[in-house]
Structures are given as C-alpha cells and as structure tokens.
C-alpha cells in the first residue's frame, strides 16, 4: 500500500532528473545517426514541390518567411537549415524575410549567411535577405503586387533594384514556394492573403504545438505541406542529405575500373561511365539516358548519375601547387596530395571550370620547365629558381638542339591524360600552347627566343615526362569525400523518443498509483 502511494508522489526534482538524463545520454551515445528516417507524407510533399521548382526553366524563387521568436528557435532552426540547404543545392534563388515576428529576423539571416558561405553562394545573385517589415496583412498582400513596394531596400540597406537576382523577380508570379517558419499561426496570413489571393504555393514549418491545428489547411490543400517540429526537420534533413549530400568513395582500381560507393551502396564503373557521367553537364539528360540505355548500362549508372547531378553545387575545391608536379587539393576539409592525372579526374567529377584547369596546367608546365632546364644544366631540380633560369638562359641558347618537333603525339598524350572527350581536345591543345607561351614569356623575358624554338625544346621533354606520368595514373588511388553536415534534427530523434517514452511511463505510473490507492481507500 505504501509503495503505491509513494509511486504516486514522486518528487518533481526526480522527474526533472530522469528527464534530463534521458535527454543527455542518447545525445552523447548516438555516435552513428539513425540512417533511416521515414518521411511523413506532409514532409515529402514539400520536398517534392521544391524538387519541381526548375531553376533552369523560368527561374522561380523561394521565399522563406522567418516568423518565429528565439523562444522556439530549437524546433524551427533545423527545419529552416534543411530547406535552405535544399534551395542552395538546387540553385533556387532564395529570398528571406520576416513579417510576423520582429525578433526572429536575425536568426534567419544567421542561418542563411552561414550556409551561403558553406555553399559558395553570392549575395544578391543567389540569395537576398530582405529583413523585416511591419504590417502583416499589408506585407503579404503587397508582395503580390510588387516586392519592391514592400521592401524598397534589403536588410543591409541596398536598393532592391540594384541586386541582380531581383531583376527577374517582381512578385508572386516569380515565386515557386513560400516557406513560412512560425511559432504562431502566421501561416494563416500566407494562406488567406498569399495562396488564396494570388495562388502562390505555401508550405509551413511549425512547432509541434500547432501541428494538429494545421490539418484543416492541409486537408483542403491550401497548404502544400508541413514540417512538424523537430521530427519534421529530421525528415527533411534526411531527404536533402540522401539526395544531395551522400558520402562517397571513388576507388580507382585499375586502368579502366572504378568502384564508386555512394553512402552504403557500391557500384562498379568503368572509365566511360565516369567520364560520360562527369560530362553530363554538357549533355542533356535524355541524350545520356539514350546512350547508356543502348549499352545496357543505365541501370548501373543511374545512381551515379543522380549523385553527380547532386554534387557540383556543394563542394569547395582549393588547389595548391606543392612543388614539382604535385598539387594539393582541398575538398572541403580533406586534403589530398594528388598528381596531375588525379587532379584532372577530380576536376572532371567536380565540374571545375576550364580556367582552373588552365591554371593547373600552367603551374605544372612551369614546374616541368624548371625540371627540364635543371637536367640540361646538370644541377639539382630543387635549386632551379627563376633567377638561375634567367642567368643561364644565354648559356642554353648557345647550345645546339637536335630535337625534332613532335606536336601530335604530345597532344595525344595530354588528351589521354586529360580524359577529355574529343570536342575538348582542341581546347586542351589551345590551353597548353597558351600556357607554354606564357611560361616562355615569363621565364625568358630578356632572351630573344622564338616561340617555335622554345616549344620545340620543351615539348619533346614534356612528351617523355607525360608518358611516364600517364602510366603513373594507373596506379591504385582512392578518393574519399565525406560530407560533414550537422543534422541537428536527426541527431535529436533518439533523445526525443527516449524523453517521450519516459513521459508516457510517468503518466502510466501516476494513473496506476491513483487507481490502486483509490480502490484501496474504498
């Protein structure tokens, strides 16, 4: 009897302690995040809608309306982060504003500015922060007429008309989705004055408290979808990560064999698969599908295609010359010392622009030049500085060169090493010739050496070295890229479940004790 009574009067501090422990422990203990989060239909609806906003067709923007106070930030911030990542990954112009809550303005700005740095997005071109304006109904209605009427300037005081992105975005006609993150019922304004007045699709990210209240609007399709609290954030995070931020390993097994691992799945791929897919940016998808289907390889290559589709937006590539022909490539936080062939392969994967490849080539040719000259002068390569070169130029000029000009084999080798498709070969040729000329101009400013002679000297040597290099390419190499994004909501899920279970248990204990003691008293 005493037991049951005591069970009904547990001190509140014990309850606090149990709850605290059950929140903290799962957060610390979860080393590996839950890999599968089944998305509720309401979440999936928003994701699919954003997927259907075409950045290449009519460039439609996404408005994110930050209408929450700091008090509910932990629930809504992860939701907003996930949606901002999605917009950035898909190159959707992003407009961020606040109207119902003045205090949340800078939470939104902080999120977007931080993620923009991560994604190399340019202010005014890829995203715009509009800040806050008073008037609720007047803001939502006003944006439907003319965005600039409501927000003559952005958050930083720039005129909207001066921002390149806003040139083609006038009102809701140019907006593919309004995402409203709110701890109140401000989604109502967007529905009544945005959707029903102008037809702009509206999605809401809300705290769990108001989830049940949104169903009337969801049922009537006046809202296209909903992110429900932290759970909704976790679901959206997962959808975005699976589509755009996979962990990948590319293993070069041999001359014509790759093993590509996307998250946990492994695919075999050959040179053609990889290069073809890498060049899909020049082909349209239908073409590629045709080619691959003809060779019966579509099944195998499709996941890879999807992956490549997703990655170019998100990676930061820093290339540094670390002496001789080695380059150091930093992909996000990873540092990879690579040689030329590997570099070019990476360049292919990450869709690095031609100008960067050009720079890389130039750096390398400079290195080669030093090496060649060093050999000719019979001194250590490491000692060859620009000054030494300059001093010895005349000496070289005195010597007789009996080297035959082999342009074609050289360029073939380069093209081979470049793994470029035929149409790019010409470009590579031009790039290299230009690079050579530049090297000669820089390295021999005083020498009166004709272009053709210098090229003659260099190209043969270059040829030999490149041949060796292209063999070197075939050694085993592994390139691994980890996507390090913090999945705030996903990480919270185990703790959320644990805490909910403990509350359910406490309610049951309270009830059992209540009924047992009442019956006994009777």
């Amino acid at each position, binding site marked *: 009897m005493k037991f049951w009574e005591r069970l009904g009067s547990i001190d509140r501090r014990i309850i606090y302690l149990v709850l605290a422990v059950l*929140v903290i422990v799962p957060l610390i203990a979860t080393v590996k995040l839950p890999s599968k989060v089944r998305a509720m239909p309401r979440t999936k609806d928003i994701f699919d809608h954003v997927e259907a906003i075409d950045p290449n067709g009519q460039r439609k923007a996404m408005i994110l309306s930050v209408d929450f106070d700091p008090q509910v930030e932990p629930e809504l911030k992860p939701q907003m982060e996930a949606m901002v990542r999605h917009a950035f990954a898909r190159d959707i112009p992003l407009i961020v504003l606040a109207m119902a809550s003045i205090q949340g303005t800078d939470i939104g700005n902080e999120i977007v500015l931080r993620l923009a740095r991560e994604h190399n997005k340019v202010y005014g071109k890829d995203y715009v922060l509009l800040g806050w*304006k008073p008037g609720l109904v007047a803001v939502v209605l006003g944006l439907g007429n003319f965005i600039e009427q409501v927000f*003559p300037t952005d958050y930083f*005081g720039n005129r909207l008309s001066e921002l390149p992105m806003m040139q083609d975005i006038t009102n809701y006609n140019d907006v593919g989705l309004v995402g409203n993150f709110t701890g109140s019922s401000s989604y109502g304004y967007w529905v009544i004055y945005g959707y029903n007045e102008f037809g702009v699709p509206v999605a809401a990210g809300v705290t*769990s408290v108001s989830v049940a209240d949104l169903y009337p609007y969801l049922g009537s399709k006046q809202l296209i979808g909903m992110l429900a609290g932290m759970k909704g954030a976790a679901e959206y995070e997962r959808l975005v990560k699976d589509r755009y931020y996979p962990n990948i390993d590319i293993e070069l097994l041999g001359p014509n064999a790759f093993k590509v691992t996307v998250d946990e799945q492994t695919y075999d791929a050959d040179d053609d698969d990889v290069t073809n897919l890498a060049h899909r940016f020049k082909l349209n998808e239908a073409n590629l599908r045709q080619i691959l289907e003809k060779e019966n390889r579509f099944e195998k290559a499709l996941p890879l295609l999807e992956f490549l589709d997703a990655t170019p937006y998100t990676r930061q590539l820093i290339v540094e010359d670390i002496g001789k022909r080695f380059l150091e490539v930093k992909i996000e936080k990873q540092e990879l010392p690579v040689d030329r062939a590997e570099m070019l392969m990476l360049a292919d994967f990450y869709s690095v622009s031609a100008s960067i490849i050009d720079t890389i080539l130039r750096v390398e040719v400079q290195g080669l030049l030093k090496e060649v000259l060093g050999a000719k002068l019979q001194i250590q390569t490491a000692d060859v500085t620009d000054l030494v070169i300059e001093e010895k130029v005349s000496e070289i000029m005195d010597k007789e060169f009996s080297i035959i000009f082999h342009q074609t084999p050289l360029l073939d080798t380069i093209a081979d090493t470049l793994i470029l498709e035929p149409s790019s070969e010409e470009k590579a040729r031009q790039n290299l010739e230009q690079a050579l000329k530049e090297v000669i101009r820089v390295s021999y400013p005083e020498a009166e050496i004709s272009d053709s002679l210098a090229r003659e000297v260099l190209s043969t040597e270059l040829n030999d070295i490149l041949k060796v290099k292209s063999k070197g390419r075939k050694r085993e190499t592994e390139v691994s890229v980890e996507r390090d994004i913090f999945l705030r909501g996903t990480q919270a899920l185990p703790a959320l479940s644990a805490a909910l279970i403990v509350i359910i248990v406490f309610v049951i204990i309270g009830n059992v004790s209540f009924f047992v003691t009442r019956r006994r008293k009777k």
Partner: protein
Amino acid sequence: MNLPFSTDWWVWIAAICTLAMFSILYRDNPIYRVAEHIFVGLALGYGLSITWHQALWPIALRPLFVEGQLILIIPFCIGLLFFTRIIPKLSWLVRIPIALALGWGSGVSIPRVFRASIFHQMKASLVRPEMFEGSVWPGIWAIILLLGILATLSYFFFSRKEKGPLTPVSKVGIVFIMIGFGATFGLTVMSRISLLIGRVQFLLRDWLYIIPK
C-alpha cells in the same frame, strides 16, 4: 592548443545565459530574474533597432524627407498620432490610427477570410463520388470527417443547457474535440522536449564539445 571545450568567450556567455535560465528549475532565484529581465530588455532594444532601420527610415522617413514624396505626409502624420499616447491630454488621439488600422484590417479581411477559411474549407469537406473509386476507405474517412465537423460545430452552437433535438449530436462532437485536444497535447509535449533538446545540443556540442563538432 586543443581544449575540450569552446574558447570563444561569447559561447561561454551564451552557455551562462542558458544555465541561468535553467536555474529556475531549482527554484526562483535572483540569477534567473536578472537573466529574464536582460532578455526582455534586449528583445525590446533589438525590436527598436530593427524598426528604425527596416521600417521607419526606409519606408516612412526617407521617401518623405529625402526623396520628397510629399503625399506620404498623410500616413506619416497618422503614424505620428501614436505618439499622443505619451501625452495624457491628447491621448485620445491615439484612437485614430488604431481605428484606421482596425477598419482597414476588418474591411480587407472579411471577404478574404470568407473565401479562404469558410468557402474553401467547406468545399474541402464535401464527400465526392470519386473518393470511392479504387479503395472505399478514403470515402469512408471523408464521411467520418464530414460528420465530425458537423458534430463539432453543433457542439459549439447548440450546447446550451436546455435540451434540443441536436443535443445528442453535440455529444458526438465532444468525442471529436477531445481527440483533437489529446493530439494537440501529445504534440505539445513533443514540442517542449524538442526545445530542451535544442538547448542541450548547444551545451554539449558548441560549448563542451562532448558531441563532436
């Protein structure tokens, strides 16, 4: 040097603020009180700064005084009437901007709320024959939904003390309402816990580096 916690002193301030707020769990104490009042002050100060830089200056003062759109003197003067709140003798004048705002708001909202919240909602509640195509369940749920809506409405409009023909219907209404409130309660619990987790995440990750950063 790699310390096992943050060395950014602003993170420490944020952590101290967080702990000060949690101190209420032990009992009401001066530290909590100070933290609470700092928040209220900061929030208002923040609001004022944003109001000036985002609203007053760019949409009211600059167009009027710098760009010379003289017609805007009218809304500007109406806005100025809010200041009469501070002057006891003229404080009745503050009713004018409030009256205008309410009048405008009501006039704008009536037709639009009717369309969006009543017309659309009622239309979405109708049971249509195509709901029974394929599987019968969507149709059955739609019928239950419609009955539930009618019962809930009747609970609000006819739950007077005196018994009428609709009294049993409104009793069904309460069943639906209670399920609705129960769902909201469950979700509220989840909401509060999510907020707690968010703060614990901050303490363990950004401050103490226990969760790898």
